[in-house]
């Protein structure tokens, strides 16, 4: 699996090209987007309309708008009309505020059948914009592997055939960076989007977005992980996207008020410098700072989300990962990110697989990866997690879905639903490192049982029930997916609000919409249904905004200003909300306030809900969750936390004397499922939706998204 820079340079064959004059960016927008039809090898510019900017803002909003126009209610993920849209948003690309270089990727998902969006670091989105394009639409399917190259310096887009005989995404990123860069210095002006062989062989393929790390002198990658976007990419026969832009100054967005952005940036840089070491330690360990706290609070998924902690959790604690990560180096996935959480393990020697014996730089593991590929498999070995993380990335498969679905497989194996005969000899018990790593290689290479595993949980449940006679109700209870997407790595059993945070999320159970566990369960700040509904309105809307702008969520509340905790609305981090209002106004020259910020999100959020409806989803039945996310499915789970659960039943007025565990589980289940339904009622009401989860016409009208095509979709469900 080796490829040389020389081979790449000499094998380039241009299939289509377009010369252009890069648009001058005006207050965050290029005003142009780039459309590429891969079936016809056609490249053309589009004008970004005022309506696009006013209603959809940018980033994920642009992605959803273009995708809506591209597909019909019948379009499937692997139809040529499906698009992958990448967009950075108006703030995207500023260098003064941490976390401002995100790309938002939108497509129809192979696993959910509906819209998926993913928020990813790396340099691609900002370089795309500064090359003159607010968004990139990729439609159609090529009949051979192709690479799209956007040269923002020369004003040229080419669709090319390039010999890249490898399924290893880290090699593709490396070789293309080297081949397209004109010098060592030029490497940081290149960003590559690619995936690996796992995206050809599973439905959970993801995309790696690269950037060049000038200190380590290596290409590094961040992942657009969720929902199988990489699988769509390979279905279109895209091998890679490459952008080159060398003119970064820090003012490329041509902002309306540079000073406003500068002041907000300096303020938060100083905060991070002063408080990060005593708050989240993002600069030391990134999101893996959560490992110890999650285990301590019974929230770390252990063995397919059965338990929330494990005595061996200390082997993969925060401190352990600090010792693995290189310290005191700049680790931002976009320029100027003082939060610098994108940690790396340097010189890691691989023990398995096609790169066995090689020393590599491994990005992460972030918290999600460490929980997904470690505790959720009953594996408490940091080196195993680092190796699994490396291979997921280079095979191009989503660590979260991989983690959650292999955990599901392991439980099925332990319950006898699967056996060695079915798995091709793999003894997939919890904690079996060798078997788990082998399954990961099978997923990446499309071999053996990996071919079934790669279908992801929703389809696996069908296969296990139909072909292996498994009880489909039990599979529904323990298979941690909703809407067809695997859960991300938090135990929500004891937080009703978080059950809603996962279950009601537009794209499926990902924590980027709402993370309310501490607010709900630990601090008891949202006790009533109305409180929870308000939180499930405000926070998903607020967090949606990051995806419209090209921003990262982490600098919002993974650092807090002095005195924040004493404020009434501490959970909102009011000073940082004001920073976001300021940097938005600073870039665009508009004069929004924090209320208009939420409205910008509401427009796009409701549009996405209607988009789900248009594709046959998006109603109450689609917000159902597996019971494992709500409470104990098995007696072993109940009994492992018996004191807590018995206490809860007594508080509810049940006389539990003489009740069997099974009886207690039954009444608890009835209660918890009722609570979830009541929560949904309250949230729908707060969001201005019907009791079936359909946005009301007056809601659409108030938000200004009552376009005839949107109203037509909704009317059918009213």
């Amino acid at each position, binding site marked *: 699996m080796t490829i040389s820079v020389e081979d790449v340079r000499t094998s380039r064959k241009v299939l289509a090209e377009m010369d252009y004059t890069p648009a001058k960016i005006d207050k965050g927008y290029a005003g142009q987007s780039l459309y590429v039809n891969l079936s016809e090898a056609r490249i053309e510019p589009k004008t970004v309309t005022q309506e696009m900017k006013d209603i959809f803002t940018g980033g994920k909003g642009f992605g959803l708008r273009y995708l809506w126009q591209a597909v019909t209610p019948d379009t499937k993920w692997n139809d040529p009309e499906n698009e992958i849209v990448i967009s950075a948003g108006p703030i995207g690309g500023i*260098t*003064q505020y941490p976390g401002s270089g995100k790309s938002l990727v939108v497509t129809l998902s192979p696993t959910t059948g509906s819209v998926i969006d993913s928020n990813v670091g790396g340099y691609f989105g900002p370089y795309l914009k500064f090359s003159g394009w607010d968004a990139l639409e990729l439609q159609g399917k090529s009949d051979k592997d192709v690479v799209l190259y956007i040269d923002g310096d020369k004003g040229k887009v080419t669709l090319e055939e390039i010999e890249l005989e490898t399924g290893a995404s880290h090699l593709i990123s490396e070789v293309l960076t080297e081949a397209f860069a004109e010098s060592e210095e030029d490497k*940081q002006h290149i960003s590559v989007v690619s995936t690996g062989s796992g995206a050809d062989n599973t439905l959970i393929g993801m995309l790696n977005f690269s950037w060049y790390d*000038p*200190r380590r002198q290596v290409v590094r990658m961040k992942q657009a992980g969720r929902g199988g976007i990489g699988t769509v990419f390979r279905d279109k026969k895209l091998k890679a996207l490459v952008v080159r832009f060398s003119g*970064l*100054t*820090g*003012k490329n967005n041509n902002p309306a008020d*540079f*000073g406003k952005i*500068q*002041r907000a*940036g*300096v303020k*938060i*840089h*100083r905060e*991070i*410098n002063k408080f990060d070491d005593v708050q989240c330690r993002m600069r030391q360990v990134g999101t893996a700072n959560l490992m110890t706290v999650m285990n301590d609070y019974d929230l770390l998924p252990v063995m397919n989300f059965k338990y929330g902690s494990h005595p061996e959790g200390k082997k993969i604690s925060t401190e352990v990962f600090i010792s693995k990560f290189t310290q*005191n*180096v*700049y680790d*931002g996935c976009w*320029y*100027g*990110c*003082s939060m610098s959480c994108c940690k790396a393990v340097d010189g890691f020697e691989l023990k398995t697989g096609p790169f066995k014996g090689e020393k590599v730089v491994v990005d992460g593991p972030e918290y999600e990866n460490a929980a997904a590929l470690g505790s959720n498999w009953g594996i408490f070995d940091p080196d195993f997690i680092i190796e699994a993380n490396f291979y997921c990335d280079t095979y191009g498969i989503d660590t979260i879905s991989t983690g959650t679905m292999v955990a599901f497989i392991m439980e099925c194996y332990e319950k006898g639903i699967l056996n060695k005969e079915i798995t091709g000899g793999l003894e997939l018990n919890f904690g079996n490192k060798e078997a788990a790593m082998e399954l990961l290689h099978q997923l990446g290479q499309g071999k053996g049982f990996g071919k079934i595993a790669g279908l992801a949980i929703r389809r696996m449940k069908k296969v296990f029930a139909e072909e292996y006679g498994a009880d489909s109700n039990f599979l529904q209870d323990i298979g941690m997916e909703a809407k067809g997407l695997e859960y991300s790595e938090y135990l929500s059993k004891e937080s009703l609000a978080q059950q809603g945070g996962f279950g009601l999320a537009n794209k499926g159970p990902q924590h980027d919409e709402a993370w309310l566990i501490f607010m709900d369960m630990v601090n008891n700040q949202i006790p009533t249904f109305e409180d929870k509904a308000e939180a499930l309105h405000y926070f998903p809307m607020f967090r949606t905004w990051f995806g419209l702008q090209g921003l990262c969520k982490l600098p919002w509340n993974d650092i807090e200003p002095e005195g924040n905790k004493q404020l009434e609305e501490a959970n909102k981090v009011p000073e940082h909300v004001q920073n976001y209002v300021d940097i938005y106004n600073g870039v665009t020259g508009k004069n929004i306030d924090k209320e208009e910020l939420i409205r910008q999100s509401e427009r796009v959020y409701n549009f996405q809900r209607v988009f789900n409806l248009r594709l046959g989803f998006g109603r109450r039945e689609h917000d159902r969750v597996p019971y494992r996310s709500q409470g104990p499915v098995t007696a072993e789970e109940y009994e492992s936390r018996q004191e807590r659960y018995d206490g809860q039943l007594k508080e509810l007025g049940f006389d539990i004397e003489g009740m069997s565990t099974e009886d207690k589980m039954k009444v608890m289940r009835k209660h918890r499922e009722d609570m979830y339904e009541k929560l949904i009622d309250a949230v729908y009401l707060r969001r201005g939706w019907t009791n079936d989860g359909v946005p009301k016409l007056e809601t659409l009208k108030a938000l200004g998204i009552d376009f005839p095509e949107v109203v037509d979709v909704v009317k059918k469900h009213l």
Partner: protein
Amino acid sequence: MKIVGKNEEECILCGTCEAVCSEYYFKEDNREKSAIQVSEIDEDPGVDINVCNQCGECIRFCPVLALSRAKSGTVILNKKKCIACFNCVGACPTESMFYHEDAVNPFKCIACARCTKECPTEAIFMEEVEL
């Protein structure tokens, strides 16, 4: 390595150093554009002279390696490489990396000694220190 040394007790807050610095580097008399900034404070000795001590802490925070030590030991910013992120401003332990909205890039003392030559009271002076 030479740095701007200071004896705050001697400072009379005349502003000469700020004017010299901003005049030379920004062609205007504006203390906010000076790489040495003097202020009156409540604590003894009543004056704070904020100027870079060339500690170099900022160097590791620069994402594009625009900050480095010159042969003389002075920490210098390569404006051609700088992408105006101000991480160095946030990271400076003494807040001696300055910024201004008129300037794309941050700016700092490069120990040119112009201000020390004009100081009427020797409150600032060039001082040799170990790196």
